[in-house]
C-alpha cells in the first residue's frame, strides 16, 4: 500500500514531536466519536498525555493513583459494563508491574481494554534502567488475544489510537518520551496488522518498529550513498505481524535486519525470526537491546551507544551484507 513520506524527514529541519503527543490527540478525538471511551491513569496524566481527554471529558476520566494492578483490573470491570477503557502509565509499570492481571482479566477474559505504555525504551534517558522499559514487547506479544502496536511517529500514534479504540480487542500500545522525527503524513495509512514499504530496494530489507523506523530510514539513506539499495519496511503492528508484506519483501532481498528500542530477544526481532524460521529461513540481523539493561544518559547519547541510531544501523547492515554475500533462501 502506498505510504506517503514527509519529504522533510531526512533533513535537519524535520518536524519532531514525542510519539505520546499523538496518542493524547487521538484519545480526545476517539472520545468525541464514542462516549463509551473512558480513560484511567495511574498518577501520570500529563506525561502520558491524557490531559486533553481529561479536560474535554472530566466525567469519563478516572484517576487511579499509583496502583497499576488496580488500574487494569478496574478497566476490565468497566469493559464488562460496556465501556472501552484506555489505561495509561509508564510501560515499566504497566505492563511491567501488572502483567498477570492483564493476562487473566483482559487477555484470557478477552475484554477490549487498551493498555498504553508510555516512556518505553532507552530514550527515556536520565531516569535510568528502572524506567527504561525494554521487555514490554516480549511480555505482551506472548499473550493470546493481545494486539501489540508500536507507532513510528506522533501522527501514526494518533491514527493507531483511533484504530484500537474501535477494534474490540485487548490492545497494547507502546509510546516513547522523547521527540521523534515525523516521517508519515496526514495521508499515510494505518491499519492494525499492516506493515508498510516506505522505500523500495533489493539488497536487504530493513524492518523498523516504533522509534526505530525513522532511524532505519536514515540508515537506508546512508546505505544508498554507498550503492547499497535497502528496502525499508515499517512494522507498527508487532502482533499480529503482517506476514505477507514482510515475506514478500524478504523473498525479494534475501536478507533482513530488524530494529527496535527493546530487548530483541522475544521482541520484534524475535517475532520476525520466528516468522522467517517458519516460512522462509533467511539470514537475519537483529538490532536492539542485546540481553542487557539500559542506564542513565542523554537520550541521543544512549541511542548511539547502543547502536540504535541511523549511522550505527547502516554500519551494522553493511557489515551484515558483507558477512552473508551469498545465501540459499528457504528450505
Amino acid at each position: 500500500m502506498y505510504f506517503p513520506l514527509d519529504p522533510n524527514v531526512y533533513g535537519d529541519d524535520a518536524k519532531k514531536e514525542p510519539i505520546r503527543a499523538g496518542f493524547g490527540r487521538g484519545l480526545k478525538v476517539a472520545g468525541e466519536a464514542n462516549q463509551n471511551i473512558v480513560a484511567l491513569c495511574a498518577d501520570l496524566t500529563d506525561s502520558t498525555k491524557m490531559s486533553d481527554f481529561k479536560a474535554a471529558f472530566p466525567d469519563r476520566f478516572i484517576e487511579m493513583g499509583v496502583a497499576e494492578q488496580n488500574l487494569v483490573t478496574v478497566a476490565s470491570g468497566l469493559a464488562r459494563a460496556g465501556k472501552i477503557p484506555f489505561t495509561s502509565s509508564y510501560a515499566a509499570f504497566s505492563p511491567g508491574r501488572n502483567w498477570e492481571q492483564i493476562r487473566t482479566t483482559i487477555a484470557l477474559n478477552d475484554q477490549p481494554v487498551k493498555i498504553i505504555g508510555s516512556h518505553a525504551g532507552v530514550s527515556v534517558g536520565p531516569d535510568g534502567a528502572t524506567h527504561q522499559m525494554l521487555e514490554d514487547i516480549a511480555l505482551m506479544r506472548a499473550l493470546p488475544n493481545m494486539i501489540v502496536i508500536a507507532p513510528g511517529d506522533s501522527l501514526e500514534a494518533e491514527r493507531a489510537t483511533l484504530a484500537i479504540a474501535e477494534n474490540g480487542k485487548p490492545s497494547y500500545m507502546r509510546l516513547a518520551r522523547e521527540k521523534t522525527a515525523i516521517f508519515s503524513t496526514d495521508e499515510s495509512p494505518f491499519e492494525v496488522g499492516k506493515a508498510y514499504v516506505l522505500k523500495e530496494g533489493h539488497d536487504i530489507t530493513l524492518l523498523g518498529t516504533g522509534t526505530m523506523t525513522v532511524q532505519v530510514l536514515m540508515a537506508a539513506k546512508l546505505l544508498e550513498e554507498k550503492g547499497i539499495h535497502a528496502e525499508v519496511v515499517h512494522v507498527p503492528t508487532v502482533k499480529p505481524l503482517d506476514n505477507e508484506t514482510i515475506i514478500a519483501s524478504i523473498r525479494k532481498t534475501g536478507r533482513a535486519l530488524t530494529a527496535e528500542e527493546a530487548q530483541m530477544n522475544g521482541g520484534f526481532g524475535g517475532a520476525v525470526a520466528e516468522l522467517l524460521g517458519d516460512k522462509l529461513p533467511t539470514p537475519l540481523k537483529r538490532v536492539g537491546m542485546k540481553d542487557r539493561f539500559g542506564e542513565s544518559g542523554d537520550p541521543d547519547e544512549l541511542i548511539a551507544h547502543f547502536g540504535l541510531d541511523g549511522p550505527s544501523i547502516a554500519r551494522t547492515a553493511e557489515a551484515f551484507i558483507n558477512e552473508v554475500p551469498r545465501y540459499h533462501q528457504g528450505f
Partner: protein
Amino acid sequence: MSGKLTITQLEQKANDVRKDIIQMLVEAKSGHSAGPLDLADVVTALYFDVMNIDPKRPEWPERDVFFLSNGHTVPVQYAAMAERGYFPVEELQTLRKFGSRLQGHPERTKLPGLENTSGPLGSGLSQAAGYAYSLQYLDNAKHRWVYAITGDGELDEGNIWEAAMFAGKYKLSQLIVFIDRNNIQIDGTTDDIMPLEDLRGKWESFGWHVQEIDGHNIESVIDAASMARAISNKPSIIITHTIPGKGVDFMEYDYHWHGAPPNSEQAKEALAKLRTLDGQITSGDIE
C-alpha cells in the same frame, strides 16, 4: 422466578448445592472442597433471593452482577447457577474435564452468566469495583447492584487493598462484597500464615461500611445485603463468618481440605451426612 423461596426452602436449596459440589468434586478428582462448601449458603442466598437476575437472559442489561474473586471456589457458583436454571444440573459433572464450559477456574468467555475470569487471587474485587463505578458514575443505573465474594486468605494480595482504596475514594455504594472469613488458606490458618485482624477496622479505615454475619444463616445473609443496599455513600463489606467444609463434619475446620477433593469413599460419607443434615443447617451452630 415466580415468588421467592422461604428460608427453609433456601436452606434446602443450599444443601442441594452442597451435594452437587461433593458429586462434582469426586467426579472431577481434583479441586477445592472447603471454600465451596462453606460458601453454599451465601451463594444460594444471592442466586435465589438477593440478586435481580434472569437465568434465561444472562446478558439482560438490567441484571445485578456477581463477581467471584476467589475463583477456586467456583464449584459453588456453578452448582448454584445450575440449580437456578442457567444450564442443566447434569452438566455439573463435566467440571474440570476436557471440553467443558465449567473450567477449573471460572472463564467468562466459556460460560454465559459468568461476569469475570478469575483464579489468580486479588483481582476480582477490582473488576467488581470497575463495574460498580460504571453503574454509579457513567450509566446512571442506581437500581443495579454489584455483588462480589473474596476469600480471606486472598486479602494477603496487594491488589485487594488498591481496590479497597479506590472503592472507598469513589464511595461505590452499589458495590457489596462478602468476605468468606473461614480462617484457612492453603498452608494453614490465616492467623498463622498472615494475620488479617483487625479486619473490620481495616475496611472501616478504607471508607467502607462493614457488617459481620453468620455466613450459614441465610436470613442474616439476606438481611445484610438489604442493609448494604441501604448504605448510600459507601461501599459495603460483609464479613461472613463461615466454617470451612461446612456440612461435612470430617472436613469442617480442617485446612487440608482447602485444595483437595474427596475420594469416592469420602464422598459417599459426605453425601450421607448432607442427606441427614437436610434442612438442619441453620443459624446458631457457628458458636
